[in-house]
Structure formats: structure tokens, C-alpha cells
């Protein structure tokens, strides 16, 4: 329990750092983004609305520390300001529309990738020295060297455009309205197949190699030697003695790579015009929509921190040594 509390504390600190970075960025950068920002809004916002936006960003004439707390107060209430691109919608509402799709896409992809990669890694480590061991590391290294979004482009081109097996973009067909029908669900899955597959393939190598290395190290341990000496069937040795322990460093690595993998999935969304955070981000960048950009940064960061905490919970469940201070 103390372990989890400590981790929670750490994530709170990290979240605070992200918030603070967000606060100081407009003030630290050369030029005067505040002016630029408001220039874009001119003629579209009433003076009161402009003032409200200033407050949301904390860009008032109050002393710095006061601005900071105003800003924090706004963020904690979920007020990230108003979007330039999707004026007059608030940043919060814009983000919300894309969040579900991003969570669906990235979440599924990352979990699938980890699960499949881990299983392959276990298999490769157990059957060492076969062709798998010589070829796979190099193969996955090559595969992983392609930028995710490039693989997405390739997949879209070959499977979508050329062979017409999958739709060319978006989360669901334009002529369908979202509903909990089988037809809609199948349609969503068809649209999600390529993006998810791309992210899975791009990230698979990392999990395979990580698990393989952890397995190799665990297979040399005394408790595995004892398990073999006890005459336990090989399946049991592999799973309950080796894999169960090798999973621990793998899960830790998963947490560390989560932010990276999710970032890559953002770029993949762009290629597939998937209506998630990635797409919104690109719009924000192109339109210099700072409120939206910073809102996405914050929401995405908090999501990653939250996911990391979930991974810690899983680790807590997997490793009995975290559950209390050992004697």
C-alpha cells in the first residue's frame, strides 16, 4: 500500500510540473505569444470574453504568483480556455469529443501489442537457439526503425488504397450514425483495424525483445534451476516460474515506454484522419491555436500519468514483495 501511495505522490508531482510548464511556456518564449494569441481573436471575442480568456490563461496584470494560482484554479475546474480553431467552443469540449477515439485506438493497440509481444518473447526465450533467436531480434529491430506514421502511410496505401480491403480514414462511415448496433460496431472495428494494426506492429519488437531478455536472465536463476531439479513439467517451469518473474521487469518497461507509444499513436491518427487527439493537435499546430494545443498537452499528459499509475497497480498485484516491507 505504501508503495502505491508513494507512486501516486510521484505522479501528482509530475502532473504539477506539467501544469507549471504549461503556465510558464507562453511567458518564457521569445516574442509575445500573448499578443499574437489575442490578435487572432480580435473581432471575434467580446471584451468580456477576451477578459475571460485572459483569466483562463492567467495573463492578467496581477503579479505572477497570483496569475499562477488563477491559472491552477481554472485548470482544476476543467477550464482550459476557448479554442481558436473551433471558436467559440471551449477547449475542454473540443478535447472531449476526440478523447474517446484516442483512448479506444491507443488503448487497444498498446494492450494488444504488449500481450502479443510478451507471448512471443516468452516463446522465443524458451526455444532458444532456433532460427527465431537469430532472425527475430534483427527483424524486429528493422521493423521498429520505421517511424510509426510511415508504417501507417504504407498500410493505408497498400491495404486501403491499392487493395481496398480497409476504409481510408475516419472512425466510422459517414453515412452511419453512432449507435450501439452490431452494424455500427463492426463498422468501427473495420475503421480501427488498420490504425491499431500499425501501432501494434511498430511497437511489437520492443516488447518481444524486452521479454526475451528478461526471460533469459530469469531462466538462469536458482529458483528456475530448482524448479527443473524438482522434476516439474517444462510448461509449468516456463510459465509459473520463469515468465511470471520475467513479467515484472517487462511491466516496468511497459510503464516507461507508455508515453512514447501513445505519442506515436497520435501521429498514426493523423495519417488515418482518425478523429482523436492527434487530429486535433495537428489542427491546433497549423492554426497556432495555443489554448487547444496546451489543453491537449495537459490532457494527454494526465492520461499518460494515469495509465502509468494503473501499470503500477498491476505491478503491485504481480509482485508480492511490494505488498509490505520485507523482514
Amino acid at each position: 500500500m505504501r508503495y502505491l501511495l508513494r507512486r501516486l505522490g510521484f505522479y501528482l508531482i509530475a502532473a504539477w510540473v506539467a501544469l507549471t510548464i504549461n503556465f510558464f511556456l507562453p511567458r518564457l518564449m521569445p516574442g509575445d505569444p500573448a499578443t499574437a494569441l489575442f490578435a487572432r481573436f480580435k473581432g471575434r471575442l467580446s471584451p468580456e470574453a477576451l477578459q475571460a480568456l485572459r483569466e483562463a490563461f492567467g495573463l492578467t496584470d496581477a503579479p505572477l504568483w497570483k496569475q499562477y494560482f488563477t491559472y491552477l484554479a481554472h485548470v482544476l475546474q476543467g477550464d482550459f480556455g476557448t479554442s481558436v480553431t473551433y471558436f467559440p467552443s471551449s477547449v475542454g469540449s473540443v478535447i472531449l469529443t476526440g478523447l474517446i477515439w484516442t483512448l479506444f485506438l491507443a488503448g487497444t493497440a498498446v494492450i494488444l501489442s504488449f500481450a502479443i509481444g510478451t507471448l512471443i518473447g516468452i516463446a522465443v526465450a524458451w526455444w532458444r537457439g532456433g532460427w527465431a533467436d537469430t532472425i527475430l531480434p534483427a527483424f524486429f529491430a528493422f521493423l521498429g526503425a520505421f517511424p510509426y506514421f510511415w508504417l501507417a502511410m504504407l498500410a493505408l496505401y497498400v491495404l486501403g488504397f491499392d487493395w481496398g480491403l480497409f476504409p481510408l480514414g475516419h472512425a466510422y462511415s459517414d453515412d452511419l450514425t453512432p449507435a450501439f448496433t452490431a452494424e455500427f460496431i463492426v463498422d468501427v472495428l473495420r475503421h480501427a483495424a488498420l490504425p491499431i494494426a500499425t501501432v501494434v506492429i511498430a511497437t511489437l519488437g520492443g516488447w518481444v525483445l524486452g521479454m526475451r531478455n528478461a526471460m533469459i536472465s530469469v531462466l538462469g536463476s536458482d529458483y528456475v534451476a530448482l524448479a527443473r531439479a524438482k522434476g516439474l513439467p517444462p510448461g509449468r517451469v516456463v510459465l509459473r516460474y520463469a515468465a511470471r518473474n520475467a513479467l515484472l521487469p517487462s511491466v516496468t518497461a511497459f510503464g516507461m515506454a507508455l508515453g512514447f507509444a501513445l505519442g506515436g499513436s497520435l501521429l498514426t491518427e493523423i495519417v488515418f484522419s482518425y478523429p482523436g487527439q492527434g487530429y486535433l493537435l495537428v489542427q491546433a499546430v497549423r492554426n497556432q491555436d495555443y489554448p487547444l494545443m496546451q489543453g491537449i498537452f495537459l490532457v494527454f499528459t494526465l492520461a499518460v500519468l494515469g495509465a502509468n499509475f494503473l501499470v503500477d497497480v498491476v505491478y503491485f498485484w504481480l509482485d508480492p514483495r511490494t505488498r509490505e516491507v520485507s523482514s
Partner: protein
Amino acid sequence: MSDPASDHEPVLSVRGLCVDYVTGTGPVRAVDHVSFDLARGEVLGIAGESGSGKSTVAQAILRILPPPAVITGGQALLEGEDLFRMSEAELRAVRWRRLAMVFQSAMDALNPVLTIREQIEDTLEAHRPAGTPRNPGRAAELLALVGIAADRLDSYPHQLSGGMRQRVGIAIALALEPAVVVLDEPTTALDVIVEGEILQKILELRRRFGFSVVFITHDLTRMMQICDRVAIFYSGRMVEIAPAAELRAHPRHPYTQGLLRAFPSVHGPEGELASIPGAPPSLKSPPPGCRFHPRCDQVIDRCRTEEPALVQLGARRAAACHLVTAAAAAVSASATPATADV
């Protein structure tokens, strides 16, 4: 102690065991032509410095040495069957049932993510013949044998003290009532008092169940206290073997003599504490002739060029030393050769 040299066949017979580690620069011999017999109910001690090959021998017999180890010679006859000719499946059936091990540090030998109960019961399950019912109370029975309360069954290894973990290791080893129990430095990681308790417990269980024990350690004093016979290893070879009392009173091999000088007894007259100068040789490039000769205080010319063979000096005694062989030959010039069994 009962006389272990009864006319039964030895329960374990190792003949000419050779173990190599195959490295990128060629094979390195870690165990060189080691032979010994273990009689039913006997406690055999194997002593030596680190790197002498004593642990390697134990793991080689069960064939659980990890790569890059290869067994390049010899036989290991467990109750008459050669373990080196068995298939994977046959080995799995024999392991633990007939020969079990207690590892050097049960701390590392117990799976950190499984409870004690699970680790005892999976052993029982793996060897339970089809058709026989499970015995749910057996795990608690085994823990009771080593003096641990049954409520510890659901603990994880990290929740137990070092001594308790080692006792769990012993309980697991006895789960299938094997004929031979190998203890590989079972008390190195424990303090002296706990060590004494554990060894007492093992001897008590041995009296009760009648299994043979191979006790591997570098602590000669302990060994003398509890073993029937003691074998001394040096640089991958067995250099002397004799009944414990005889070895302590009349060590023949210069290395054994040096070792005994370095391990004073708590009782008895004060003597000089002497260590053997130098260090054990590298296994990759051992010295020519007798491997001990660079450190030997009784070295003669022959030792530098010719490897001494293990020569019988009596019914249960042997040594590998040119001096010893020469002295024995002189003494029993006309006597008939000793029996082949050691």
C-alpha cells in the same frame, strides 16, 4: 552412527565424471575424472575452496547445470541406473523422487511470486501417479517435520527469515522421500547458531527416514562434526577421501593437511593458525603435473610433471599424491591391492 559400509550396493555411484564449460575460447574443464560411491544411509562430505568443482559435481549428477556446461565423460549410477543415459522424460521422473537438492541459498532458490504452499504442492502434483488422490495435508506435514508452523504455508518467501527459508528448502527436498539428499552449501548465508540448528534437524530427519546425504561445503570443521566420510576437492579433482575421524587425525594429502591447519577446532590445544600460500589455479590453464604443486610445501620433482592418480589406501580411503602413493607402496609392498570400491 550406524556403520554405513554395509554390504548393500551403493545408492549413488559416480565414475569418472568430467564436466566442461564450452566458452568462446575453448572448453574449460571444471570437473576432472571424479569418482566416488555413496552408501545407503551414509553422510558424505565434499569440501573444497570456491571453484574446486564441488557444486558443479552435485548439479551435474542431476543434469541441471545451465549452458555452457557439457558433461564430457563418466557415469552417474543412481540405484543402478545411469542418469547420463536418460531421456528428458526419464530424468524428470527420477529427479526429486530419488535424488533431491537443497540449494545454496534458499533465498534465491524459492520463487518470489509463489507462496510456500504452492511451491511444495507443485512438487507433489508433478510426481503424483495418475489415479491416486491428492493429499491436502501433506504440505503442512512437511513443514512440521522441519519445525515450521502450518500458518506459514500461505506466506511468500520474502516474508520468512533466512533460516526459515532454508528449512522450507529442506522440507521441499524431503517431499517425495528420496534416497539421496544433496545439500549444496546449505548454511553459508546463515549465522552460526541457525546453521547448527539446521544441521541438527537434517541429521535427525536422516535418522528417521534413512536417506543418504551429500554435504557440500567449504567449512571443514562442520563437516568433520557430522559426516561419515569426507572428500576433498581441489581445482576440479578429488584429491583425498577418507572416513572423517581418520581424515582429521591422519590427513595424507598436503592440501588436506593445509586445510586442517587453517580450521582450528574450538576445543583442543592451541596451535598455529596457518593458511595455504598462493591461490587456486585458473581452470583455463592449470599448472602441469599435480595442480597443487605450486602451493605445496612437500613438493618433489615428479609433482611438477606428472599428474598423480587417485590411489586406494584402504577399504574406504584414497588420495591423489605422489608422496602418499610412494609411502603406501613402501608400507604394503607385498600386500594385495585394496578393493576397487571407495
